[in-house]
């Protein structure tokens, strides 16, 4: 029986093929990228119903009563800090007739008043009052009409996640070994002080959200998808920045690590050697020569460390389902529809460095969104277009599967492989399946 038959004919949920038949050891079915029903289910289960979801960085909520309006899957939510500093997530949806309460992206507010009929809620969700309360009976209990609260909101060193699942594992357990990689990224900043204070590159593409997740852990594509960037970099001669992806990446020292629960990381750092190496190998950005002269003159022996902080972390850390740490950026995968996705690239500044270093970081963080990411997104859109052919059913993730000597288990139990292994896709699809099918395969 072909799995496609049902999808082509149109079907009811009752006869939908078992998702377990759509995720195989070496391939996944095209409908995982094209089927609006599967997408709708993902938005409920994977984006909050069962799993933790990344929502915000604490620096976006800098003071008591700060708020940030974001999406949790397709749910409009407000992440708030109460007057004592604790974090909450509430649906941005009036409990009365459903209008969104908060129509600004961020700000400071102790309470939200619905612009439609004036119901007012504390930033922790409780209903404070309704206009002309005599219109409600004496049994009206304000306690029953608070905003829908997201069960748990937790922060790992500034990274705010939430879940509707009361019985989800502790956030640190869900992150598992990914915490060590986040620690590396955070601790590059002196005192671990990371700041999101710039507007974001909000990039959109006409394709499924998982195309971005497939790509973030993919060490196979750069030599091809980023040919324009690599070619541009050679305009002024030798550039090592990312060029290692083009030269037999399987023979180089880069590794990809599977961190459990769909998280993975590509470590590009072994391509570099010691302090100053990130900076020395960076493709030049505006102001480079001046900032280098100034920092070396002012900071002497400490200059290499500071200059390296202008450059990205050289890890690509993917935290399932929607947080991608790339370079110095915090990238958030925001699905809009089965074939439409927003990728928000939040540029970061850091504390404890001269302002010139942060300015250089801004110039650095403009580079890939301008000359790298658009080529990937063009390819994502072309994948989505290609997947419209129903008879060609499968998307393959079989590179590295059963190849002797590629995967190895580290002392910490973490499985790693060469950077072009598509192990990261096989890895996260196992988690995807678990979250989508109760009592799943594992």
């Amino acid at each position, binding site marked *: 029986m072909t799995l496609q038959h049902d999808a082509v004919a149109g079907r009811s949920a009752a006869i939908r093929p078992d998702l377990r038949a759509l995720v195989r050891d070496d391939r996944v079915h095209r409908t995982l990228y094209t089927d609006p029903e599967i997408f709708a289910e993902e938005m409920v289960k994977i984006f909050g119903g069962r799993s933790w979801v990344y929502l915000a960085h604490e620096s976006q909520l800098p003071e008591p009563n700060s708020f940030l309006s974001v999406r949790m899957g397709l749910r409009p939510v407000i992440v708030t800090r109460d007057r004592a500093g604790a974090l909450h997530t509430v649906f941005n949806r009036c409990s009365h007739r459903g209008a969104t309460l908060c129509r600004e992206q961020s700000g400071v507010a102790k309470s939200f008043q619905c612009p439609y009929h004036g119901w007012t809620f504390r930033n922790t969700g409780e209903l404070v009052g309704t206009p002309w309360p005599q219109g409600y009976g004496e049994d009206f209990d304000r306690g029953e009409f608070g905003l829908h609260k997201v069960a748990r909101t937790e922060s790992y060193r500034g990274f705010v996640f939430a879940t509707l699942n009361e019985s989800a594992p502790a956030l640190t357990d869900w992150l598992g070994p990914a915490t060590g990689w986040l620690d590396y990224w955070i601790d590059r900043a002196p005192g671990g002080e990371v700041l999101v204070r710039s507007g974001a590159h909000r990039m959109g593409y006409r394709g499924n959200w998982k195309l971005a997740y497939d790509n973030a852990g993919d060490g196979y594509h750069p030599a091809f998808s980023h040919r*324009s960037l690599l070619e*541009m970099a050679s305009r002024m001669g030798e550039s090592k920045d990312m060029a290692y992806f083009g030269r037999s990446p399987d023979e180089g020292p880069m590794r990809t690590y599977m961190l459990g629960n769909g998280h993975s990381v590509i470590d590009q750092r072994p391509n570099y050697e010691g302090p100053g190496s990130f900076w020395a190998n960076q493709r030049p950005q505006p102001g480079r020569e001046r900032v280098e002269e100034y920092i070396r003159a002012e900071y002497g022996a400490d200059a290499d460390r500071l200059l390296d902080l202008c450059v990205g972390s050289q890890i690509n850390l993917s935290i399932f389902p929607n947080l991608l740490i790339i370079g110095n950026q915090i990238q958030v995968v925001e699905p809009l529809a089965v074939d439409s996705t927003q990728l928000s690239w939040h540029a970061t500044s850091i504390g404890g460095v001269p302002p010139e270093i942060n300015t250089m970081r801004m110039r650095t963080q403009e580079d890939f969104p301008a000359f790298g990411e658009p080529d990937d*997104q063009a390819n994502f859109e072309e994948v989505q277009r290609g997947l419209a052919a129903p008879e060609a059913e499968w998307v393959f993730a079989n590179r590295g599967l059963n190849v002797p000597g590629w995967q190895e288990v580290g002392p910490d139990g973490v499985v790693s492989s060469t950077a072009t292994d598509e192990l990261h896709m096989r890895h996260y699809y196992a988690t995807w399946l678990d979250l989508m099918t109760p009592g799943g395969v594992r």
Partner: protein
Amino acid sequence: MSTEIPSRFADTSSWSYHIGNDYYRELSRQSELLREDWPESTTDELSRATSFLAGEARLVDEGRFNDWLELFTDDCLYWVPVTPGGGEPTVEVSHAFDDRRRLTDRVYWLRTGLAFCQIPASRTRRVIGNVETTVDPSTGDRLVRSNFVVHEFRAGVTKIYPGWYGHVLRSSSDGWRIRLKQVNLLDSDQLHENLTLVF
């Protein structure tokens, strides 16, 4: 106003020594001037400014990017802020913050034939209006402000980008050269697909 550039860094298509704190201060001053109320300009000034903008627009719309690049000064900036109106580029990212070197890179990149986001290339046509002009009292540079609507067709989809330009033009023996082109998209801080066309 500008810092002495050491001779080894003189070629600004390869080196970027001149972008320092003084450069950012000057950019901030120019950007503020571009938002101020200006006295009414003469018909002749307006007509010269308008025809310069039309000529520049034609080079971009016809994909003549090498010719377009030649319109810029050595210390130029092609700037497309994310924050509406410009924001503070020392602490915020831009869609484009192209000094001469990065602008040369951008044109080179567009012409590699390998940028898949520009295969097929964007076809664009733009309309420019509401042109105003004055002179920067401290440098003598010509300031020009205008509204634009850029229409783009690419890969089966037509898109529309409204906004306003701020141009700072410097006189040269060859006519005006662009010292600053600030492109203020109406929705610069919002979602955009494939923002790789040239504004």
